[in-house]
């Protein structure tokens, strides 16, 4: 067995567990990068882009909802801001979407802080309710504003294929790699956060506010910071999504349904875990797209019914999410 240690094991060690996580992520990213070689079908490609994009979105949501425990059901606001700002800046001023996305993300961060200032003094469920109400209000504002095109929305002009303008008429492939890049970025951000002071403080706030305070954690500031990081990446994904679909209107980027699609994958896959959001997205997003294509239109709401059943099933059978199923096959190691 282990030798009696004379030097205590450091509390901050680059453990084999973290190295393994990184290795798995690298393998997954490589496999996903090669996947388009095997996929020719446009319909399937479409589903893949959306799945990866919402995996990334849910990973961003998880930073606030999973680590810090602040359950937002209004992330569509940040998503919508990212989408609208990126498109509007491009259409009205010719600003390239790369900069537009950053502008949208910056505005989303400012909004997240402005909303957090009053809302993070609310505890638990009240915060969640506030996010729903704010998102609904934002939806109405956008639907009635002029620069957003009102209820009609905004359409990207037709332009030649270019990485600068992110316009690709004939192929979805560039959007696939764009989404994959973003998903890798949000995964790495989460992986880094898990091992930093901020990540520890956020999880402490999630677990026990009084205990966190007794260790010197500024609870309010922790929530604000987690919210800002989460909003940033959510808005960037909103920009990518807008250029992928090339047409946005209030319901397609800012409705409650979007908030659900952002939060549910993490909840289903494993809230506050590194792989939960991606696992949840793999299950939920293709299902939503398939029901939509079979039943037409909004899919007669069948996807919502299935989401509901899945979330109920997971909370009864596997409260730690789909990710905990992995441990049925892979033994847990330190």
């Amino acid at each position, binding site marked *: 067995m282990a030798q009696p240690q004379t030097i*205590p094991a450091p509390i*901050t060690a680059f453990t084999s567990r973290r190295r393994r996580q990184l290795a798995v992520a690298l393998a997954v990213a490589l496999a996903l990068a090669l996947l388009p070689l095997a996929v020719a079908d446009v319909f399937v490609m479409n589903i893949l882009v959306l799945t990866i994009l919402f995996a990334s979105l849910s990973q961003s949501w998880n930073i606030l909802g999973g680590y810090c425990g602040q359950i937002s059901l209004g992330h569509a606001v940040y998503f919508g801001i990212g989408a609208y700002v990126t498109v509007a800046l491009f259409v009205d001023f010719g600003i390239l979407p790369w900069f537009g996305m950053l502008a949208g993300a910056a505005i989303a961060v400012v909004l997240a802080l402005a909303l957090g200032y009053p809302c993070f003094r609310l505890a638990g469920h009240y915060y969640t309710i506030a996010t729903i109400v704010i998102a609904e209000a934002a939806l109405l504002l956008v639907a009635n504003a002029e620069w957003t095109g009102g209820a009609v929305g905004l359409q990207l002009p037709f332009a030649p294929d270019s990485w600068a303008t992110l316009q690709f008429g004939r192929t979805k492939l560039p959007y696939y790699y764009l989404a994959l890049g973003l998903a890798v970025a949000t995964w790495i951000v989460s992986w880094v956060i898990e091992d930093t002071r901020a990540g520890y403080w956020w999880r402490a706030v999630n677990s026990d506010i*009084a205990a966190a305070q*007794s260790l010197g*954690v500024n609870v309010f500031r922790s929530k604000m910071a987690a919210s800002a990081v989460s909003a940033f990446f959510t808005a960037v994904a909103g920009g990518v999504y807008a250029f992928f679909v090339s047409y946005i209107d209030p319901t397609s980027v800012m409705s409650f349904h979007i908030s659900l699609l952002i939060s549910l994958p993490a909840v289903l896959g494993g809230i506050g875990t590194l792989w939960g959001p991606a696992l949840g997205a793999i299950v939920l997003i293709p299902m939503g797209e398939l029901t939509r294509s079979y039943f037409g239109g909004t899919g007669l709401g069948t996807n919502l019914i299935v989401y509901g059943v899945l979330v109920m099933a997971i909370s009864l059978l596997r409260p730690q999410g789909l990710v905990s199923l992995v441990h049925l096959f892979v033994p847990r190691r330190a």
Partner: protein
Amino acid sequence: MLEVRHLAAGYHGLVALADVSFGVAAGEILVVAGANGAGKSTVLKTVAGVVPARSGTITFDGARIDHLAAHRITRLGMAFVPEERRLFPRMTVRDNLRLGSYLHRRRADREAPLATVLRLFPRLEERMDQLAATLSGGEQQMLAIGRALMTRPRLLMLDEPSQGIMPRLVAEIFRAIEEVRRAGITILLVEQRLTESLAIADKAIILRTGRIVVAGTAAEVRANPEVRSAYLGM
């Protein structure tokens, strides 16, 4: 080091503390004792900033702290271990300790107290990668104290550390408290077990319905006839 003057506090109109004054000098152990509901815990919670003071002053190293938020008080160098311990149950022992250490920015400052904590509580080293929830009551108390020590406090506030612990470990906890003091850390100890507490304390105050009824050195309090009959059962 810590000065409490005419402190009053209460919950929802109920008076929990009235006109409580005491001081703790650097390196001392002060015991706060009394029956259930006498206001012992409220003293600690008010000093730690968990419960607001209604009137009176609390000063730490000459600076008023009675209107500071709990986390700011911790940052000044006062660590509070609440009665319920409040560990992070789904985190490992290591991560619980690590959370205490993050008060300090430099890595060396964060790692340094670990050796002290593990010397005080060698059991924790065996349990480093277990979830805190799987520890026994005594081990959880050790971890709670250890986690507080990771913040490198100058004043440690302990609320009923012997509660819910098997008798064999109680002695170990008290030994640890003595050793913490030997390391130069001042201690404010709330305890029901008066005999054991007075054995390690320099000073003691005894509360009844929110007021101090007996105060003095450990020897004086031990010799007080009322204390002997009511609290020490002699």
